């Protein structure tokens, strides 16, 4: 059949070739595209690895679990997944591991599962950083509005981190937590109407990248009066810092998500377990001060060079 | 009537907004009699039956069964009281089988479980009793108009009912089917069922009924003993005047004329085959045949609604292959369809649009000209004396016959060169029927060629310059108008193929 022919193109070596499934939260979040690139590069470097990139179009736990399960029945050689919905996948991940398929998580962890390792940021810590930096910028007083999208667990953790810090500062008043339902148009609308609603708002904090993937979402915000802090640093976000529309961005290791996951899996297959189960990728705190280096570094990453 | 009447209406009033459908109607229907209800279109007959069937409630007045007043809140109550109704408009379930249609709402069950076989058997015997040549498993939606109407009747007969009311059950039936139906009805009557029979076909009324109640403009214009009255008296009571004597049927076509329409071995299987006929300007050709003989399909095919399998159509000697009904209309054809509800009216549009839409479409005019259209519509409403408040009302507020007039008026208003009519006076009262016939004649005299499919034999004999008889999709023969009579036409219509010379 056609299928067998496809497989045949990967030749008889296919028998030896390792098939790693890499599963993002969804296909509609642009950040994951870099993870895909990273994974494919790592696979190419290590050689003899086939990366199967597969996710549901939108964040849908059930679909993700179904995909995960089907990879177990396919008996792939390893699975790297950015898990939606916290403990939702534990039992499935455990079944994979028990079945001898190593599982690592990236970007979004499933800490209570038997997953062998996690590579990514500590979302709560990242949230704290956003909180602290905001407090610094506002020197401890003023109205703040938060933007999130209810449902995703890692967004919830970041939000907790932010709120944890802001709560410590009585001068800071969180006027609203907006749920934009993963809709970037809705996000722009909220920012506009929210700015309109709270004239003396001092800062916006978005725990996701929705507002910084276009220049127009922030049109309504006057940088002189209102600071903007957001997650994610993929283009054109850094441009917005240069333009002074955004004051601080938290960047993640987008390429690393894919690359490190594949390396971890390859290592595990080769019998060397990761030193610690949680590999904190750390975050890039990008401000006007370091935006230029960051962009340089990013260009390197895009070209596939090690910065 | 000394015995307690089975049904009596007492001062029944019903109005719809401005329209007074019934203004205090009172009369009795004796137990076991066959009682006819006649009246012009819009006189209130169907409204009265809808009240009897519990689907409408009177504004005032009351309805008594066996002398006891009862209130029917919904159709189910009427059924519970042993009242069976055949409604004027067909209420079929197109996606259900004939069996399911007949037993709908009153299925035979054992603990909620359907007794399919029993129902199918009873349906089969019922269909045989009425001589309906369809299978109990056929889908109602796939039956031709007439069969669907007969299935409606069968529904009412499926259960023993004390009172059976039929609202124009024969509009698309030919005498043959009517005879079968009447035999069944007479049988019911002999077994004590009270019949209420609504029809515009007075011969039927006189054939079946003991007494005749006439409604006029929603009020009771009198009840007559059949024995003691004559048709013209009834008509006078209905219309309020004597019908003017019929002007001599148009001279008819001059033999010298070239045929306006020539149909040459037109075929569309399985509906009709090898149909050839010619119509000259000013000629009225009536197409007669039993139910399912293929007349509707033939007319619809001529109007480019269906593809033909073979054969040719010539207008004034030039062959035409119309791609769409629009082309046909442009070429001067007009088709007044058989089923006004399915094929005629737009119930979401008011009368103005309903009346002008085909004309404007044929003209393929670009913009809508409300004022011009209103005046045109008002003109048609007046010319056809359509009973309605005005061109802004919607078709479903019109009585059946008035709906029929709307459909006919809008096509004739286009002054077609060739007029195709399928059951043109279906459900139309004697007065209106007279008018429609006059209009057809007038148009014919002005040189229009008319092909009229009708199941109403008297109508056929009255109108036709020439009667063409179809049977099972084939032309059985022709009879010149003056030589045609019931007997000769029916013989052709029922004769075995080939038997006809």
């Amino acid at each position, binding site marked *: *059949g*056609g*299928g*067998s022919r*496809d*497989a*045949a193109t990967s030749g008889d070596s*296919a028998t030896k070739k390792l098939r790693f499934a890499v599963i993002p939260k969804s*296909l509609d979040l642009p950040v994951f595209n870099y993870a895909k690139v990273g994974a494919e590069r790592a696979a190419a470097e290590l050689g003899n690895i086939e990366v*199967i*990139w*597969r996710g*549901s*179009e*939108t*964040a849908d*736990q*059930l679909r993700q679990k*179904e*995909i995960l*399960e*089907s*990879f177990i*029945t*396919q*008996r792939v050689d390893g699975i790297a997944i950015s898990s939606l*919905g*916290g403990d*939702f996948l534990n*039992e499935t991940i455990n079944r994979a591991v028990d079945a001898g398929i190593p599982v690592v998580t990236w970007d979004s962890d499933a800490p209570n599962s038997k997953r062998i390792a996690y590579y990514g940021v500590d979302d709560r810590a990242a949230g704290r950083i956003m909180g602290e930096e905001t407090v610094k910028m506002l020197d401890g007083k003023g109205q703040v509005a938060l933007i999130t999208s*209810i*449902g995703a*667990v890692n967004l919830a953790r970041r939000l907790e981190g932010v709120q944890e810090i802001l709560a410590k500062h009585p001068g800071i008043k969180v006027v609203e937590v907006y749920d934009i339902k993963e809709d970037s148009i809705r996000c722009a609308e909220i920012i506009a109407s929210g700015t309109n609603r709270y004239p003396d708002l001092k800062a916006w904090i978005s725990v996701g990248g929705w507002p910084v993937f276009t220049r127009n979402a922030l049109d309504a915000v006057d940088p002189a009066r209102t600071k903007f802090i957001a997650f994610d640093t993929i283009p054109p976000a850094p441009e917005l810092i240069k333009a002074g529309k955004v004051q601080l961005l938290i960047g993640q290791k987008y390429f690393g998500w894919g690359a490190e996951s594949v390396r971890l899996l390859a290592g595990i297959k080769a019998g060397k377990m990761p030193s610690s189960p949680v590999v904190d990728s750390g975050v890039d705190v990008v401000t006007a001060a370091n935006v230029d280096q960051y962009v340089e570094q990013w260009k390197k990453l895009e070209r596939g060079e090690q910065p | 009537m000394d015995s307690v009447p089975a049904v009596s209406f007492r001062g029944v009033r019903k109005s719809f907004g401005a329209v007074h459908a019934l203004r205090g109607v009172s009369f009795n229907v004796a137990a076991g009699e066959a009682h006819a209800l006649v009246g012009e279109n819009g006189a209130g007959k169907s409204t009265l039956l809808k009240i009897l*069937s519990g*689907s409408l409630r009177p504004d005032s007045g009351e309805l008594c069964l066996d002398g006891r007043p009862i209130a029917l809140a*919904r*159709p*189910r109550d009427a*059924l519970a009281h042993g009242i069976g109704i055949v409604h004027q408009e067909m*209420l*079929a*379930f*197109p*996606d*259900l*089988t004939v*069996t*399911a249609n007949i037993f*709908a*709402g*009153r*299925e035979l069950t054992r603990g*909620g*479980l*359907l007794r*399919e076989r029993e129902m199918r058997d009873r349906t089969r015997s019922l269909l045989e009793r009425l001589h309906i040549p369809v299978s109990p*498993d056929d*889908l109602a*939606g796939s039956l031709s108009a007439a069969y669907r109407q007969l299935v409606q009747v069968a529904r009412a007969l499926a259960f023993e009912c004390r009172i059976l009311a039929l609202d124009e059950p024969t509009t698309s039936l030919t005498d043959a089917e009517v005879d079968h139906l009447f035999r069944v009805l007479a049988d019911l009557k002999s077994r004590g069922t009270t019949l209420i029979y609504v029809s515009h076909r007075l011969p039927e009324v006189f054939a079946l009924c003991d007494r005749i109640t006439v409604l006029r403009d929603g009020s009771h214009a009198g009840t007559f003993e059949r024995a003691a009255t004559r048709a013209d008296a009834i008509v006078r009571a209905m219309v309020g005047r004597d019908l003017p004597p019929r002007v001599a049927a148009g001279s008819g076509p001059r033999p010298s004329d070239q045929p306006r329409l020539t149909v040459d071995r037109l075929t569309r299987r399985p509906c009709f085959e090898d149909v050839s006929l010619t119509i000259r300007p000013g000629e009225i050709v009536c197409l007669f045949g039993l139910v399912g003989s293929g007349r509707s399909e033939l007319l619809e095919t001529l109007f480019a609604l269906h593809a033909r399998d073979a054969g040719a159509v010539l207008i004034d000697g030039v062959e035409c292959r119309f791609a769409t009904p629009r082309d046909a209309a442009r070429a001067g054809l007009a088709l007044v369809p058989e089923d006004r509800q*399915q094929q005629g009216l737009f119930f979401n549009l008011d009368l103005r649009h309903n009346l002008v839409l085909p004309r404007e479409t044929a003209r393929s005019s670009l913009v809508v000209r409300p004022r011009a259209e209103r005046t045109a519509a008002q003109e048609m409403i007046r010319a056809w004396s359509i009973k309605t408040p005005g061109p802004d009302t919607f078709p479903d507020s019109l009585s059946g016959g008035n709906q029929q007039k709307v459909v006919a008026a809008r096509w004739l208003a286009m002054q077609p060169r060739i007029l195709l009519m399928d059951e043109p006076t279906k459900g139309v009262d004697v007065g209106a029927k007279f008018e429609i016939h006059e209009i057809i004649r007038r148009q014919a005299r002005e040189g229009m060629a008319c092909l009229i499919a009708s199941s109403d034999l008297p109508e056929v004999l009255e109108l036709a310059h020439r009667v063409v008889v179809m049977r099972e999709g084939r032309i059985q023969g022709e009879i010149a108008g003056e030589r045609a009579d019931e007997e000769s036409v029916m013989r052709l219509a029922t004769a075995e193929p080939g038997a006809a010379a």
Partner: protein
Amino acid sequence: MTTSNLGTATELRNRPGPRNLRLSSAWRTRELSTLAILAVEILFFAWYLAPDGDRSHPFLNFPNALLILKYSSIYGIAAIGAAMVIISGGVDLSPGAVIALASVVLGGLFVESGWSLGSSVTMAILAGLAAGVVTSALVVLVGLPPFIATLGVMGIARGAAFIFTQARFFDVSGALPPGWQPFGIPLDWFAPGAMIGLAVLFQILMVRFQWGRAIYAVGGNETAARFSGVAVGAVKTSVYVLAALLSAIAGVVLAVVQGQGKADLAMGYELDIIASAVVGGASLSGGRGSVIGAVLGTLIFGVLRNALPQIPGATFYDRLIVGFVVIVIVVMDQLLVRRGAR
């Protein structure tokens, strides 16, 4: 959806096809064609995904079949209700939301409030019942178009679920005893079992019982049904309430089998569910379709969801393929049914 019957009637006049979508004996041809399509689909993937060499077949194996059934059952159970609503001439947009609501009610009570599983399940079902009662009240009493009524209920149910969870989720799996088996049925078998059981039950109710016949009648021609003495209001009410109950059951199964109650589960499933019913032969103009067909429809999509991930690099093509397949299937189906007619 009265006037859509127009559609139906027209079809009937113009195409011979639909003539055979009749109830009684003929409905069987109907499901047969759906079944045939499912078979063709399975065979195709069995061939296309056939492994080279001695590797076991990745698609054509028992655990995978069970997997397909397990994940289809969420859609399938709800599709039973959706089919009934569609046959009655309506449409239901609320299943996804009701599924989520039931899952969070169960999760919240069972996991957080420490209720017994039994009573939590009962409450979840009652939540569904409530949704169904509201819907039918809006459709039958207020006379709203089903599309709008159910759209509103969809928003309300989903919103209630979010408010109930306050953006948390409930880990039911954690609270259930490990290796727990509902009625002694292995968890993986439970969902498919429920789906098949309910499908058979309702198929019988729809085809062999007066109540089911009444639903077809109401969907086919509401006025005629009323004139024939069918209690139209009662029939519609029963249909919408049952549909909501079935969605709630799907939500319970989801929470128990997938082990989580979360407000954003089954988001947007309503369209998939309706599509399944239509692929299974239901006509949105009412009066036509079948419960079994709808369930087979969900399996057709289930197989697709399961098989596509096994095609390397297809991930971005999923939607396109699914959209394409929907069309191809319905066209094929029309042809098959017509063939069946001859």
